């Protein structure tokens, strides 16, 4: 059990992948902008440096709450990682774990809002409010989009959804719109560039994380990176059938390729698009994406699958 928690698929595995994913992401964005980009150890150096810095907090905040928030966020992301099959290998699974993973992945957004609200500062509070508004806009389409493959394969178990698709057809070929919605929701969840409204650097400096420094900031960053990895794996497992083929090696290669493809698409989106305004996002979310995701579920039901 401790091996599962600490090494695979727990902390050690996800930590290494998070560092790697951050490097690939920063490097890709730099290449798209015509720059060279950081060396491969850069995320690790940033993390260790932040661990060694002084821990400052504004006067009047609840210090225990401020210390607990990043840790709970990290714990939620790591726990979600325990239920995600990696390259066809499923360590833990039970019926309904998709719901649990979706809940655990949405927890950091709420904690992000709480961090902004409890650190007394105008930028943090503004960022926290924006985080909550963004949460309502992307979370509903994301949930509905990920319930598409679940209904299609009549199971709420991620491993079952994955295995079922390897014998029938990948969900992305049946539900391309659903994948787009899930991808968009993932960008919003990770607060990446077109949807980095809660931490918009040129408007509200660093949003809810403005008052965090040192160790706490390092853990916030780590939690966000692990959320990136887990989110990408979740999309690969639900929409691409986890890349499962007969041979073990081929599965591993296909899974890595698909995960890398989604990561690079995230970088392309960050490099290509400017930030949306919060009202634009709310309008897009409630007027376009949610009706689309409802239509998608109606489409699955009409096809005679599920229920």
């Amino acid at each position: 059990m401790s091996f599962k928690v600490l090494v695979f698929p727990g902390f050690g595995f996800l930590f290494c992948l998070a560092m790697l994913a951050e490097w690939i992401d920063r490097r890709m964005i730099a290449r798209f902008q015509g720059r060279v980009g950081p060396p491969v150890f850069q995320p690790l150096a940033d993390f260790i440096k932040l661990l060694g810095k002084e821990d400052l907090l504004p006067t009047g905040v609840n210090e225990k709450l401020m210390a607990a928030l990043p840790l709970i966020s990290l714990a939620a992301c790591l726990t979600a990682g325990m239920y995600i099959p990696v390259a066809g290998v499923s360590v833990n699974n039970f019926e309904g774990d998709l719901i649990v993973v979706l809940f655990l992945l949405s927890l950091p957004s709420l904690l992000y809002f709480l961090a902004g609200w409890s650190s007394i500062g105008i930028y943090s509070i503004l960022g926290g409010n924006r985080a909550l508004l963004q949460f309502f806009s992307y979370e509903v389409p994301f949930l509905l989009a990920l319930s598409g493959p679940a209904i299609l394969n009549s199971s709420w178990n991620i491993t079952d959804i994955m295995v079922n698709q390897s014998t029938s057809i990948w969900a992305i070929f049946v539900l391309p719109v659903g994948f787009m919605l899930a991808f968009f929701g993932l960008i919003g969840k990770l607060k990446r560039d077109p949807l980095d409204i809660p931490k918009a650097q040129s408007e509200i400096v660093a949003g809810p994380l403005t008052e965090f420094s040192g160790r706490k900031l390092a853990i916030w960053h780590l939690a966000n990176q692990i959320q990136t990895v887990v989110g990408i794996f979740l999309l690969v497992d639900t929409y691409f059938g986890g890349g499962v083929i007969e041979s073990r090696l081929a599965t591993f290669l296909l899974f890595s390729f698909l995960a890398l493809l989604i990561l690079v698409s995230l970088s392309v989106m960050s490099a290509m698009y400017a930030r949306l305004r919060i009202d634009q996002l709310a309008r897009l979310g409630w007027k376009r994406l949610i009706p689309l995701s409802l239509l998608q579920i109606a489409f699955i039901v009409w096809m005679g699958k599920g229920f």
Partner: protein
Amino acid sequence: MTSTLIQKVFRWARRKSLWVLHYNSGGCNGCDIEFLDLLTPRYDVERLGIRQESVPRHADILLCTGPVTRQSRDRVLQIFTQIPEPKWVVVVGSCGCSGGVFQGSDYVLGGVDQVIPVDLYIPGCPCRPEIIIEGLIKLLEKIE
């Protein structure tokens, strides 16, 4: 033994990852534009691990340009105290080093070192980006 190893790891990390907070304490904006050049494709300091941050609490280096005016004195002090230890101060431009052409003015206190301790002076009016990069690398060697 272990403590020296940990110290070595932290020193390595500090040298490889510098987050810079840029503040104009009353200059003419010339040095600021030269500093922003560092982030462009031509110079790209991200390959050295240097990144611009917009919050004092996230930064390692306070990079000041321009002389300190009476108005900005308190702000420089406040920003300096908000940066968590270990921290360094870099001054870019002749005005920030000594007061430059504004020396003796009623509204200017002089160089940045009149208000906060400075680790590195980079003179020039304005400095070229190459000199700023070289100065920052000199600072990296100083870091313990």
